[in-house]
């Protein structure tokens, strides 16, 4: 018998193994749900799979009684818009601040400690200030996301810039490049794929802040819906919504990976 670290499953076994935990969780859920529903058919806590599928279909295809909108799509559009805006602006800020602090010693000394402290402040705790400064509309939600992830991206980009071999910067200078040209032609293009990696890492937090901000003041959005229907323990809606958000998060992650793969063929990629 080989040591177990030297044993590799073949493809079909590997696939089956990968599916196993999902199937198990599903089974456990079905058993638990059936048991609870047998006791109290109105029990809202663990709805049956079919009830959830129905609820999801209703949300996706039937106009809401109250507003006449297709709830799921309205929520998804609203949330993705906020997330997209917040993340894009954070990326822009991260890129600019990160490149400047990473490349120019004077700027680094001035802003790097400040950004570090900024990144340690728990954004949820300063919500009232954000409200007062930015209102309670879309802006505040986007700002919460920015406040939550931009400092992280800034620091990450700064580190990536600092990691660029000095050799490259010296080489650029021996080719006559000015500071501005070094930024534009040496640093920026090399940092871009790393920015996408940092963004992928930050996306988990971005979703959290999105949901938190939608829980606090909103009229639509995925987080809004979950926290609204939580009021009557409507797990038929919550669980499919959680699955849907997870799926969306997954797709965004894959999208970013693909962009990196196809736009920056020279980039080996950072693991994670």
């Amino acid at each position, binding site marked *: 018998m080989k040591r177990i670290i030297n044993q590799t499953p073949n493809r079909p076994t590997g696939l089956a193994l990968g599916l196993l935990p999902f199937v198990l969780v599903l089974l456990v859920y079905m058993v638990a749900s059936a048991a609870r529903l047998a006791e109290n*058919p109105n029990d*809202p806590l663990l709805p049956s799979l079919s009830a959830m599928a129905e609820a999801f279909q209703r949300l996706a295809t039937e106009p809401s009684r109250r507003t006449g909108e297709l709830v799921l799509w309205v929520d998804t559009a609203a949330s993705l818009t906020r997330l997209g805006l917040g993340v894009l602006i954070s990326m822009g800020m991260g890129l600019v601040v990160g490149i400047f602090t990473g490349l120019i010693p004077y700027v680094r000394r001035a802003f790097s400690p400040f950004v570090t402290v900024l990144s340690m402040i728990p954004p949820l705790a300063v919500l*009232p200030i954000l409200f007062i400064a930015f209102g309670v*509309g879309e802006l505040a939600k986007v700002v919460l996301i920015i406040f939550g992830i931009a400092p992280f991206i800034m620091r990450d980009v700064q580190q990536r810039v600092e990691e660029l071999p000095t050799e490259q910067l010296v080489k650029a200078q021996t080719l006559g490049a000015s500071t501005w040209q070094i930024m534009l032609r040496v640093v920026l293009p090399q940092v871009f794929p790393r920015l996408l990696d940092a963004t992928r890492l930050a996306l988990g937090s971005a979703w959290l802040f999105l949901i938190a901000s939608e829980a606090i003041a*909103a*009229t639509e959005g995925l987080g809004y819906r979950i926290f*609204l229907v939580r*009021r009557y323990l409507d797990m038929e809606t919550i669980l499919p919504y959680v699955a849907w958000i997870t799926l969306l998060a997954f797709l965004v992650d894959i999208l970013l990976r693909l962009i990196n793969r196809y736009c920056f063929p020279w980039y080996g990629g950072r693991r994670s």
Partner: protein
Amino acid sequence: QERDSFRIAWSIYVGWMPWGYGDAEGIVQKWADKYDIEIDVVQINDYIESINLYTAGSFDGVTVTNMDALTIPAAGGVDTTALIVGDFSDGNDGVVLKGTDDLADIEGKRVHLVELSVSHYLLARALETVGLSERDIRVVNTADADIVAAFNSRDVEAAVAWNPQLGELRRMPDANVVFDSSQIPGEIMDLLVVNTEVLEANPALGKALTGAWYEIMERMSGDDAIAVEARTIMGDAAGTDLEGYEAQLASTTMFYDPADAVGFVESGQPLETMENVRQFAFEHGLLGERAPSPDFVGIQFADGSMLGSEANVKFRFNADYMRMARDGEL
């Protein structure tokens, strides 16, 4: 089935602060000992979460308003009994507008409130009085803890809130309370509800809770040193002080005397109120998407009268224990 250990959840609100006080001062303990049971009184920060936990079976009882008792546990199939009607809101909930003192000006505004809560219900009742409907405004769901901060923002012009937030809103320059619960007295009741099955199997639980409650009531009412100290402690626990807490009490009609509570419950008012509430709840989908009509959930009142489905009674008003307290039988 018979048990001897129970868990009650409460959350921070003017009419429920006595539970925290009674727990800390050992009054609940004393009454539980008297009936030879154990009662664990647990504070939950988030009101909705406390109800959810009760509905899910983590607690045997919870402090809740009449409307939420109907829409969450009862609609969720948990047979729920209102054991104690502690008070009704008498100005504790209100609609606040900036820059105007006329409720009719609310038309077309974005109104910030905890959606689908008693605030929402209050707004609906307020709109009726000026001939408007919900279609004439836009409701923005806003977390209760953040409503004060939100109202400070320039783009928020209207909000509905309960105390203590309402008090904070009222204090802000340019803010006017244009409608409050004193204009619909008795419609927003603050209850202690318990699981019906548990109560039926364990009458001792009902007796101990009711006994404790009215002992606390006796202690905190009046102007003697003990009462002032009790109210100070409650104010502190609510994150304010004696003055702030008394201001909140002023807009609450507490039933310090069990006789008042019994009288209220046995009057026709609860039925009338619940009729409004269940219509509202149904219109807003609070009874669940599968509820075909407001009659889906049956409600039983202290005098035996009924609303809705008799086959699916899930919410009951019960005056038996408060009556025992009134008659000194505990």
